[in-house]
């Protein structure tokens, strides 16, 4: 018997089973597939959301999109203003700011410790980083400020003992308090705390900021110097193209994208990826077993029908393929319904009521690539889950099958 004939009969039987099968059973099967698919998407999307959030925090508060630093033993970048101007004129760059390390020790009362004190130009810094928009006390620096400093929560403590870094912080510093800063060259200067920020990402909260003008006034050596230039690109993913353009003009500095600088969060994102992989595997196993059980129960009821089909001469291949086709269609519809359920209900719901993680609110962040992969995997698992019991049934003794 030609394989084509078996396929033709399989399609004939499969189509009839789909269009004329028990509506309730079909609806339940599709609903089950849809829920399995939505569930398959949910946890990985949540973890991806947490990873995105973490990387976003890193980019917006610590590394920016691209960090430009001196090469070799140089401590500062030569002619930084020209590089900043060129960067701002480069296509794909949304903002650029220059910083210089101005001090390294801060004290308040009897408490003292080392934290980097960066001199920044407030406007361009606020255009490049989100930190100035995350003030929990006071406000960020203005260009005209002098003798004022902004502290991260990990430095100030702000009287919040529940903060993980509280014990190592100044513990009880608030906006308006005065702190002493040891500047480069050993000069001690007292600053008024203008504001305290909390960037969610604990590593980003360990920095203090003063204005470039103040730094130049107090430490003339720092005037016109830069220890790092940070760029924000228009779009995430454009970084390497921007680096390539800038490197042609200024090859004498080191360019690093946020991805290469994310070592501080690599362990966390690596753990997230591992958890995602494990949950994905478990979800797929659950999906496969569930589909197998559903198909098996369906087949128990269809065993006699299969026996009759065999008795009248229908090939086992035609019977098996007809069930595989039926499952394929149900799985495909389930994927479509599950996708609609996920994007139409779960994503908006979690967006309006996000999960609160230590690094802030986290929404679902599904990716098209994962959706396509999960859809394909679900359909393949469903077809295999259907074929196994069907193949077992078509191989039973014919009379046993006919008698059900």
């Amino acid at each position, binding site marked *: *018997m*030609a394989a084509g*004939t078996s396929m*033709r*009969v399989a399609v*004939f*039987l499969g189509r*009839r*089973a789909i269009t*004329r*099968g028990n509506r309730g059973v079909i609806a339940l099967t599709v609903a089950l597939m849809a829920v399995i698919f939505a569930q398959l998407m949910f946890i990985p999307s949540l973890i991806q959301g947490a990873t995105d959030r973490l990387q976003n925090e890193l980019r917006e508060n610590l590394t920016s999109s691209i960090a430009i630093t001196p090469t070799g033993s140089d401590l500062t970048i030569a002619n930084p203003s020209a590089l900043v101007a060129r960067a701002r004129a480069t296509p794909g760059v949304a903002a650029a700011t220059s910083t210089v390390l101005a001090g390294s020790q801060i004290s308040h009362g009897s408490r003292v410790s080392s934290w980097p004190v960066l001199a920044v130009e407030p406007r361009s810094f606020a255009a490049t980083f989100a930190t100035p928009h995350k003030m929990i006390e006071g406000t960020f620096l203005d260009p005209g400020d002098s003798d004022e400093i902004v502290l991260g929560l990990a430095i100030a403590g702000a009287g919040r003992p529940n903060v993980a870094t509280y014990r190592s912080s100044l513990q009880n510093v608030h906006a308006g308090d005065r702190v002493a800063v040891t500047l480069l060259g050993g000069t001690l200067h007292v600053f008024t705390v203008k504001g305290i920020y909390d960037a969610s990402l604990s590593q980003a909260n360990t920095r203090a900021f003063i204005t470039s003008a103040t730094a130049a006034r107090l430490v003339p050596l720092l005037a016109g110097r830069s220890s790092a230039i940070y760029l924000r690109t228009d779009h995430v993913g454009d970084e390497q193209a921007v680096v390539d353009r800038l490197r042609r003009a200024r090859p004498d500095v080191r360019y690093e994208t946020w991805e290469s600088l994310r070592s501080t969060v690599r362990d966390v994102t690596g753990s997230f990826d591992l958890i995602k992989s494990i949950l994905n595997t478990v979800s797929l196993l659950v999906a496969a077993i569930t589909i197998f059980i559903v198909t098996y129960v369906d087949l128990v009821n269809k065993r*006699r*029908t299969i026996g*009759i*089909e*065999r*008795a*009248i*001469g*229908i*090939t086992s291949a*035609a019977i098996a393929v007809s069930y595989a086709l039926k499952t394929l269609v149900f799985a495909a519809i389930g994927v479509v319904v599950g996708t609609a359920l996920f994007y139409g209900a779960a994503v908006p719901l979690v967006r309006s009521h996000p999960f609160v993680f230590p690094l802030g609110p986290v929404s679902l962040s599904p990716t098209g690539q994962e959706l396509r992969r999960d859809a394909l995997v679900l359909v393949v698992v469903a077809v295999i889950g259907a074929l196994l019991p069907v193949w077992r049934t078509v191989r039973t003794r*014919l*009379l046993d099958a*006919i008698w059900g």
Partner: protein
Amino acid sequence: MDEVAASDPDRAPALEVHSLCRTYGSGDVAVHALRDVTFDVPAGDMVCIVGKSGSGKSTLLRQLGLLDTPTAGRILIEGTDVTRLAERRRRALRLERLGYVFQEYALLPELTAEENVYLPALMTGRSKRDSRARATALLAMLDLDDRAGHRPSELSGGQQQRVAIARALVNEPAVLFADEPTGNLDTASTASVMQALVELNEQLGVTILFVSHDPDHRRYAKHLIYLRDGRLSEPYF
């Protein structure tokens, strides 16, 4: 009687059965359902297999319909020994040369009457148009042309059994087997199904073997085979 001869020696046998045995289990628990059964059925004959419950009637029909494999003996269909064929060949024979009607109608519930009938024709590789034409003709012959588009659940028992008969005949088999075809039917439906079998035998010349426990059905057959405890107990006449 160990061996019976065909009633008309001029006609070639559609079916030849030689020393057929079927034993279930082994040793002390072995059940000998068929013992040394031998007979020929000429082409175009209509034979009723009769006997008490448990005499081996259905077991015999299942061996002949290639739904089961005998423990010993030989079965020849149109002169070809089919006893030990591989399942693939047996399936092809069931599809193309044999028809089988079950007691419980055994129609596929998701197909209409017409689709149930033409499904085996599709399986032989015939076109859908040709297959449908055959189904339409058979359903008309069995007075079911107005029920062609109905599904089994919308048909009476007698109508379902006549659809099953049409399905068994769609590939023009050499032999049609019917296992208690009226076992689940009321008196009126029984008469219509039995009459349909007689007419098909006369009009199409198809060889028919049917099993019945109803003594009244003997009148529909040209010949009878009596079974008792798995053996032929009366002459084939």
